[in-house]
């Protein structure tokens, strides 16, 4: 339930950011992370970015997600 995935912010328009994760582009709400900037990686939970993460960690976790999705 508290599942969240890392994604890269590619565009920001007020409280809505366009993010990219594993090649999928999606809009999320960034009200809870007002400091998010283009190029940042964020953790996304149910349509909202809930925290900003550092890039190195995002790529590690993303590797793990790819593995997970291939299994499904």
């Amino acid at each position, binding site marked *: *339930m*508290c*599942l*969240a995935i890392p994604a890269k912010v590619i565009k920001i328009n007020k409280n809505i950011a366009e993010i990219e994760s594993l090649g999928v582009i999606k809009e999320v*709400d960034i*009200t*809870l*992370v*007002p400091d998010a900037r283009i190029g940042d990686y964020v*953790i996304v*939970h*149910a*349509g*909202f970015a*809930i*925290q900003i*993460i*550092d890039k*190195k*960690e*995002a790529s*590690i*976790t993303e590797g*793990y997600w790819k593995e997970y999705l291939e299994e499904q």
Partner: protein
Amino acid sequence: MSIKEICLKINSLVRDLDKKSINIMEVCGTHTMEIARNGLKQLLPPEINLISGPGCPVCVTPTIEIDRMIEIIRNYDITVFSFGDMIRVPGSRSSLAYEKSIGKDVVICYSPLYALEFAENNPDKNVIFIAIGFETTAPLSSVIVKRASDKKLKNFFIYCTHKIIPPALEVLLKDKEVRIDGLLLPGHVSAIIGSTPYKFISKVYKIPGVISGFDSEDILKAIKMILIQIVRKKSKIEIEYKSVVKEEGNTVAANQIREVFETEDSMWRGLGIIPKSGLKLKPDFSEFDAKLKFPIRELSSREPKECDCGNVLKGLKKPDECKLFAKSCTPDNPIGPCMVSSEGTCAAYYKFYRIKY
């Protein structure tokens, strides 16, 4: 450090323990699933016993709450938005999924934003979002309630079953039956609340706690950090998931929760009523409270017969010690919530340890 190196370190730490075995409870359902999926139990020495705690919001929601939601659906003309996990959980007599199958307007959504958008676009329909989840999800509900308030929506409501984690941990630590030597603390709840709300675990109960990330390496590293504390007879709250969890958490999100919700006593399946462990809308936002807007009669509920979810949630029993497990209770035909939720302990056992059954 590679997984092999972490495991070797864990093995050498276990040799320094002065106890025969230690119990480490993982509090988060996502951790339960990752541990099972990656076979982490099998990588650990037999002295380390991983037990699953009450960290799946769907699983700890008592039957009576589901019965009440269904009673509202049956008595009022409304559209209900719910996360997918929730809709298959059996109530005493029905489930949201069953109500949907007989024509009630139940919609599965990925984000509460969809429920709000639907309410805005359909002013003639009353819309309820079933707000479930721990501190990770509660700020999202805060944001949409505030937005509904700013937009002066009169047809949007939440049915709030949000709960918070620290009071439940205190109940488990006080319980003489449950023996916990270390806690693997939830990563994304902590992304919001930080590490400070857990301080009582180390200060009062002298138990180590480590906030962990979600891949195998994170979880094993956190277990190693717990063991180091046990061997050194220390107890403190540490953060393994440093890239996401700050000591102070996400203060913007935590303030959103405080602005919209206040705590109340709340019923947890298996744990009973825990003081100040639930969230309810503050009086300023009570016009969005589905429980007030759509009153229902008193209901009597019954927990599923012979289902041992309560003991599983406290870590007192393993799923395969329940009479129903993998027999009448399976993911396709779940009897208890721990089998329904994709992050329930029983579902994890069924999916990944079933080689035995």
